[in-house]
């Protein structure tokens, strides 16, 4: 874990309210694993006061660049996405537990890996697909990306380029299948050739992904976000309900969880 002031190399609007920030952070880029996040703040300001947790979409270990996908969702992230190129950002990271790689999961090595993304949740899955591409034993990657409209399929080319098959669903039918991405997942699971499902997106989507994967008997890992304080497991702010009672820390126990660890009922209710 490092706390370091870095240069924002570029900050590009890629969809309404969505920006890709490229940051020069060689040490964090080299240490970063798929699914981990950085905790970003703007130095020498108190507005916003707290850091914001942001998933790493790509870590270019050669050039030392991090690419973060940021959705302007409130006052803090609105200020962050307005930063110009050349600005300083303070990063704490890499933080959290990464996605387990397919070879660490007992799901059958001859089968496919399914990635299910919803909206801004695509970011850590791009990073995961990128890492799986460089494995000696690269799995067959079937990716699915859902959003409300075509506009919100942010950075879809990044995921498509790293997948063997790529499907899209939009709620208004403006791109791909009309409907929810979980309907596409249902078709994929029916084929009975899935080794593991990785999901990241809205809570309701992930809950459905987890339920369907469990029903199909396929291991499932989801990446969560939550309002966060310290980012290192100390303050217990970023709690989500744990299966069997109590809470898990998104920053330290997660952000990636085995779907069986999570109390999905509590997450739907929040």
């Amino acid at each position, binding site marked *: *874990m*490092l*706390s370091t002031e870095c240069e924002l190399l570029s900050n590009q609007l890629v969809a309404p309210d969505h920006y890709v920030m490229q940051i020069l952070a060689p040490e964090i880029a080299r240490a970063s694993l798929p699914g981990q996040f950085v905790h970003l*703040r703007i130095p020498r300001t*108190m*507005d*916003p*006061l*707290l*850091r914001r947790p942001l998933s790493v979409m790509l870590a270019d270990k050669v050039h030392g660049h991090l690419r973060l996908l940021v959705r302007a969702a409130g*006052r*803090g992230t609105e200020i962050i996405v307005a930063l110009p190129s050349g600005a300083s950002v*303070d990063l*704490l990271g890499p933080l959290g537990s990464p996605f387990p790689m397919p070879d660490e999961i007992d799901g059958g090595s001859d089968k496919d890996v399914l990635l299910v993304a919803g909206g801004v949740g695509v970011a850590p899955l791009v990073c995961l697909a990128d890492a799986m591409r460089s494995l000696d034993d690269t799995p067959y990657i079937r990716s699915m990306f859902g959003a409300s409209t075509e506009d919100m399929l942010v950075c879809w080319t990044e995921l498509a380029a790293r997948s063997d098959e790529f499907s899209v669903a939009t709620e208004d039918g403006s791109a791909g299948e009309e409907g929810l991405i979980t309907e596409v997942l249902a078709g994929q699971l029916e084929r009975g050739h899935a080794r593991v499902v990785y999901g990241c997106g809205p809570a309701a989507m992930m809950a459905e992904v987890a339920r369907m994967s469990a029903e199909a008997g396929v291991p499932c890992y989801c990446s969560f976000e*939550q*309002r*966060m*304080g*310290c*980012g*290192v*497991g*100390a*303050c*217990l*702010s*970023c*709690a*989500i*309900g744990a299966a069997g*009672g*109590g*809470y898990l820390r998104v920053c*330290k126990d997660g952000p990636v969880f085995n779907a069986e660890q999570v109390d999905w009922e*509590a997450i739907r209710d*929040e």
Partner: protein
Amino acid sequence: MSEACPDLSVRIGSLVLPNPVMTASGTFGYGLEYADICDLSRLGAVVIKAATVAPRVGNRPPRIVETAAGMLNAIGLQNPGADAIIAEKLPELAGFGVPIIANLAGECVDDYVLLADKFAACGHVAALELNISCPNVEGGMAFGVCPEMTAELVGSVRAITDLPLITKLSPNVTDITEIAVAAVTAGSDALSMINTLLGMSIDVRRRRPLLGNATGGLSGPAIRPVAVRCVWQVYDVVDVPIIGSGGIMCVEDALEFIMAGASAVAIGTANFVNPLAGTEILDGLVDYCQSNGIKDISEIVGVAHG
């Protein structure tokens, strides 16, 4: 170094801390979470997350929300219980050589006495901080808003331990000096102030409270003027050390508290913003003393009172 190193040590009852910069309970976990980024051994003390007799799961999320120059939290005293903390956390933290202060939270006098007994017996803690001011659990502030109950609680714990006792006061009272005097008269060796201010924020889109617990404790720079005022008022009526806290982000903020009457400071919300806040503020205090010809930090404690 051209100037002599100033004396930053602070006495709290029988305890002498190497310097006045400690962490505020609940903002630094058990210290271990920060061990690979912060040199814990440089801190004056680590005040650990509040311990209760039995484990507590904490409040339903969301538990934190940023507000103007501050944040609200409603963690709900989540902790694995005193026995687990003593067995699983303290031995490792003790290995860093930093004084450990245990923050105790109970529902009744007997809870506090039992907790004090357990932590005193474990041999790892240098002092006890009585948390009579948590706004985020039912009854958490009950002791801290009533002078008689404060006195009974402090007196009961005082009777069973020789460890230095610190009482952490709530700002959510009409007159904080009454509670302060009650705690000191009953045997508290020091006062820690302030705990968070009871606050609330509403999600206007969902038309519901933002925190799962509805209300929470406000901390950060937004509360600093309130905290400095509390220290200023209490300094006039007690003769024990005050540990000032409330939105300290940098050395100037720490100096404000010291000049208002605090002998030590506790860093809270700033740890989330900058994990090195405590050690940077310590460096800043050394610089300030050297630049201003101060040989002993106690020379400026309460200096603003004239």
